[in-house]
């Protein structure tokens, strides 16, 4: 069974998804960070494929993308790095997140093949429109066992949310507020209303909230009406500010700090 499916079968609340950029801070850091996140108890991990023009991303992730590219990260290199991880004890569900152009240049079918070969469970391609996915890519993703995640924002109409939900099979990524990644979203009444409104739609997919989730308070607020939340920029900032030698402990502490109640239980 797809690892995402089985995760959401077993866990329906407080699911923590952590994003980091492949090949950042150093080219060879991808797998060690992945392993540290698994050890720290992240429920799923989203690995960003760096891109030169990440329009949906704020400054923090823009800079990690640029640094990763300067380090020499490519789609091909990422697959080389992920080779064999499933045989080496990495069991956490993995999503690749990235922009469409590098995937298209790599070759979409070859990309899907490689994902399956290394054990990737799903994809988030923010600039792949729903319509193009349905028309061109859906059978291919399915053939290689890849689940797809679509974004929803506070501006997305209920009708469109239903369309996205019908085609998504990983989860629905609820963008907390209009903005790019890393925006300072305060989990105010508006966000709460949007999340509970979305909950009332009774979607078939689990929902995870992202953009601006950075600590225990914002995680708890975001998870109140949803399956869980996604942390990206705050984790990238941690990686930036932590020397490599202290990284595993810092990651442990960071992840534990997001769900203090879970650790008491």
């Amino acid at each position: 069974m797809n690892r995402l499916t089985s995760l959401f079968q077993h866990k329906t609340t407080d699911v923590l998804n952590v994003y980091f950029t492949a090949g950042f801070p150093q080219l060879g850091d991808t797998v060690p960070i992945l392993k540290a996140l698994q050890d720290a108890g992240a429920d799923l991990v989203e690995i960003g494929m760096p891109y030169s023009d990440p329009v949906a991303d704020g400054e923090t992730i823009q800079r990690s993308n640029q640094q990763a590219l300067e380090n020499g990260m490519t789609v091909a290199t990422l697959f080389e790095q992920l080779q064999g991880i499933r045989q080496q004890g990495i069991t956490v569900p993995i999503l690749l997140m990235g922009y469409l152009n590098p995937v298209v240049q790599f070759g979409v079918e070859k990309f899907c093949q490689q994902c399956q070969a290394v054990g990737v469970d799903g994809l988030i391609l923010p600039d792949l429109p729903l319509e193009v996915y349905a028309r061109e890519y859906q059978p291919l993703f399915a053939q290689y066992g890849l689940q797809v995640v679509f974004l929803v924002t506070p501006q997305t109409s209920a009708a469109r949310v239903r369309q996205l939900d019908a085609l998504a099979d990983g989860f629905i990524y609820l963008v907390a507020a209009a903005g790019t990644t890393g925006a300072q979203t305060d989990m105010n009444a508006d966000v709460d209303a949007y999340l509970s409104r979305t909950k009332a739609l009774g979607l078939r997919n689990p929902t995870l909230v992202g953009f601006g989730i950075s600590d225990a308070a914002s995680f708890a607020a975001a998870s109140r009406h949803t399956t869980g939340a996604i942390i990206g920029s705050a984790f990238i900032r941690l990686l930036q500010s932590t020397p490599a030698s202290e990284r595993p402990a810092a990651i442990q502490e960071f992840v534990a700090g997001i769900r203090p109640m879970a650790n008491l239980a």
Partner: protein
Amino acid sequence: MTLLAPSPYRVDAGGYYGPFGGAYVPEMLYPNVEELRDNYLRIIDDPEFQREFTQLLTDYVGRPTPLFLAQRLSAEIGTTIYLKREDLCHTGAHKINNALGQILVAKRLGKQRIVAETGAGQHGVATATACALMGLECIIYMGEIDIERQKPNVDRMRMLGAKVVPAKSGSKTLKDATNEAMRHWISNPTDTHYIIGSVVGPHPYPDMVARFQSIISAETISQLLQQTGRATPDFMLACVGGGSNAAGAFYHYLDEPNVRLVAAEAAGQGVTSGHSAATTALGKPGILHGASTILMQTEDGQVTEPYSISAGLDYPGIGPQHAQLFATGRAEFLSITDKQALDAAFQLSRLEGIIPALETAHALACLPLIGAKKDDVVVVCLSGRGDKDLATYTKHLDEYSA
């Protein structure tokens, strides 16, 4: 002549030009793009819109712009050259045609704030001008490098009341200013309209911008008819950054196979020099700024940082319609180096008393290359004037002084 029957060169119902075009935008932009897509034709076709737009083009922009027979240049090159004088538009370039059209659309969509990107600053100035005229707030993103090399336009935008925000990411030029403008739009989805400055971006922008610029070829048809007795030239020349002046100059000639369409791209220091913006020569199909098009990129699909002496052509892609014109062979794309452009700029200045924009100079530099015969009628879209480029021209003055 204005027959818009199904054409392989025009946008189809799904927003594509053959394999190019579409709307590859993150979901955050979907409602904005959808709102525009569902309304732009209705708004533009409304007689009241047309009346207001036409009146502004006449009384404010100063249209129609002249079609000028450049006799000394014609004699020098050995053909018959007409210049379509977009440089005489208010604010000094064709960009104002689009800025005014879009601001009227934005008003009808109830938007209060305008965001735009700019390269050479001409689109920024045009947008700031339109915003001042309509009383809307205006935010312009401009690459940090372009802010330095197009200073007069930065000052003009500020004088017009716009806020100019430096784009500091990536190559710090037009591509990055476009990214920043898109991010701004993502963060302000309901009250803001994004006035894209060229025929790029997600559908419906390329088509909408081309429609607003199509006045260039519409006027050319009647002016040519009056001056020469024929409505079609043998050649139509224009420079291509994103391609809006070319799209307008080509618009009514797309389905006239006897008109050879020539697009000038910036080769920078040479197509193979590593410092170039010659998109069709160096690029491959891919996705940039929300459209499937041809773009300069690495094997890994990372967008390459372009280079051109001209800030308005310093862009790694072209509009999807131009990608289709290139792929089908309908238009010829020529690569013009910095040096060829400078030569052409000084030539026009000395022979006709017209200082062209550096962008435009790339189109002029095609004149000796197209094999036009003496009696052939060649129209060059003189997209803008060179005042903004005086600092660059001044650096080269000695080379061109006898």
